[in-house]
């Protein structure tokens, strides 16, 4: 199913990678990665053109052989969700491509110099990201082929309540802003659906086998590792989306001019200038300042942001120092080295940043589960055997059968 789509997306991805390399290396777009004075630009452009012509030609020529006889019965189905997903990711790619080359297009059109920056990408990417999160929450609940209202209601009503109540609780507790609230709601919606899938599958398995919880969980995941691995990956995406939105929406920063022994506060953290040190070598001079971070009387350690100047360069290179916590990260930068005893220090508090990493870790773990050869594909001797036919119905089916009398 969707083989023409998939192949087109794969080739487009590769072609755009080459195009991106061309844009930065050739210097067509201002970039620190540009090679000066080299013939790489025309070469890459030629390579890109060749890739596009050959792949578009091949796909166009052989598309009839790629088409599958399968069909899509209803837009409200797993297949429909995949198509909508493809459309949204393609739209996302188009935003990035157009935003990147638009200054070049504008200059070619009427010679004007324009910029397309972060505010543009933020306002275009946000609705796409919301729609993708929504699809990610709904798609696992959609059956293949066509969904009936009964099935959808039964599978989505609990996650939807989870979303609504999470949003309400957060708003009452003082969370402000459209993007964080919507992200939280969609995250609760998706997480609720994932929890429900696990709970329903586990209950069905325990009814069938009478195993204790832990063994039933392992057996269930091993029995359908691709489904449950995929759901774990979704959970990682949920964590990632929350961390991404909250860390960018609720970052606070300030600058402080400090003498030795003086302190500055931000969001409950107190940063005290303890000491400074400088090292000098033939190639660079570094100055660092020791800053002690305290919160609520608790000592969180001493951190040493620095600035270095390299021989032959006037520009100073900063080395920030980060205190990482489960709830918040504190970033310290030395903006200006101590001069007459006074240093300029930048303090920035970013919430939930570490959860970007946790989310990524959960995604990797989910992928590993999905890729792991299922337990039932291993014979007693531990060798890989050809996969036997699935011995028990998938959990969602079990539940359907249990609730809707067959016949």
């Amino acid at each position, binding site marked *: 199913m969707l083989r023409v789509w998939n192949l087109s997306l794969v080739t487009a991805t590769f072609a755009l990678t080459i195009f991106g390399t061309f844009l930065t290396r050739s210097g067509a777009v201002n970039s620190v990665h540009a090679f000066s004075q080299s013939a790489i630009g025309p070469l890459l452009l030629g390579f890109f053109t060749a890739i596009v012509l050959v792949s578009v030609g091949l796909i166009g020529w052989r598309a009839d052989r790629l088409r599958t006889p399968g*069909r*899509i019965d209803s837009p409200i189905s797993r297949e429909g969700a995949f198509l909508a997903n493809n*459309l949204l990711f393609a*739209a996302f790619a188009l935003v990035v491509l*157009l935003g990147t080359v638009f200054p070049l297009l504008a200059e070619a059109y*009427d010679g004007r110099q*324009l910029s397309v920056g972060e505010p543009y990408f933020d306002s*275009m990417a946000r609705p796409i990201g919301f729609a993708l999160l929504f699809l990610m929450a709904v798609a696992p609940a959609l059956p293949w082929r066509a969904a009936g209202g009964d099935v959808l209601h039964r599978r989505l009503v609990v996650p939807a309540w989870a979303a609504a109540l999470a949003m309400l609780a957060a708003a009452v507790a003082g969370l402000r802003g459209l993007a964080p609230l919507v992200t939280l709601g969609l995250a609760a919606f998706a997480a609720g659906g994932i929890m429900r899938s696990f709970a329903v599958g586990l209950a069905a398995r325990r009814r069938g086998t009478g195993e204790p919880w832990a063994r039933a969980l392992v057996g269930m995941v091993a029995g359908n590792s691709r489904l449950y691995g995929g759901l774990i990956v979704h959970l990682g995406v949920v964590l990632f989306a929350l961390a991404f939105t909250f860390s960018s929406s609720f970052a606070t920063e300030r600058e402080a001019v400090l003498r030795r022994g003086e302190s500055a506060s931000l969001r409950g953290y107190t940063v005290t200038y303890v000491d400074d040190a400088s090292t000098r070598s033939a190639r660079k001079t570094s100055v660092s300042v020791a800053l002690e971070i305290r919160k609520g009387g608790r000592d969180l350690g001493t951190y040493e942001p620095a600035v270095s100047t390299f021989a032959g360069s006037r520009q100073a290179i900063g080395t920030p120092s980060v205190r990482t916590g489960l709830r918040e990260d504190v970033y310290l930068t030395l903006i200006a080295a101590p001069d007459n005893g006074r240093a300029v220090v930048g303090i920035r508090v970013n919430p939930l940043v570490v959860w970007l990493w946790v989310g990524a870790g959960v995604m990797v773990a989910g992928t590993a589960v999905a890729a792991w050869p299922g337990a*039932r594909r291993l014979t007693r001797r531990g060798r890989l055997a050809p996969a036997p036919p699935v011995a028990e119905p998938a959990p969602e089916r079990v539940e359907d059968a249990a609730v809707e009398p067959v016949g």
Partner: protein
Amino acid sequence: MRRLLTWAAIAAVIAVALALGTGPQSGAGTDGTADSIAAGLRCPVCQGLSVKDSDSPTARDIRADIQRRLADGDTPGEIRQAYVERYGEWILLRPGTSGFEALVWAIPAGATAAGAVLLAAAFWRWRRRHRSRPPTEEERRLVAAATATVRAGNGAAP
């Protein structure tokens, strides 16, 4: 009917939460405004950084100037316009919505809408072309046989 009421209740709770959470903000003040203006201006001496994100002396001067102008009662629009007059449209990181720049907004939105319409049309065509029919006796027999094999043969594969 009960189902409809359930979903209406969920929608109502979400609406209340959004109304509560996006109401008039307290404490954003001039600092928030100055930050959002600085985030929309390109740092003239940097590569791809906004005035807000840059530590260069020029960006610091611009940030101080924005604060001063806000204190003098200038609106964010007037401040942006002043910078456009000094540096050209190039200074704005958010392209305008009129003239040629409108395309950078309209093309993705239009292409996505067109894609959605095309998908909907394709679904409609597929459904018309392939009306589903109830399974034949032969198909029912095959499915029953396959299901029986699976039920009986749990773990019986070679």
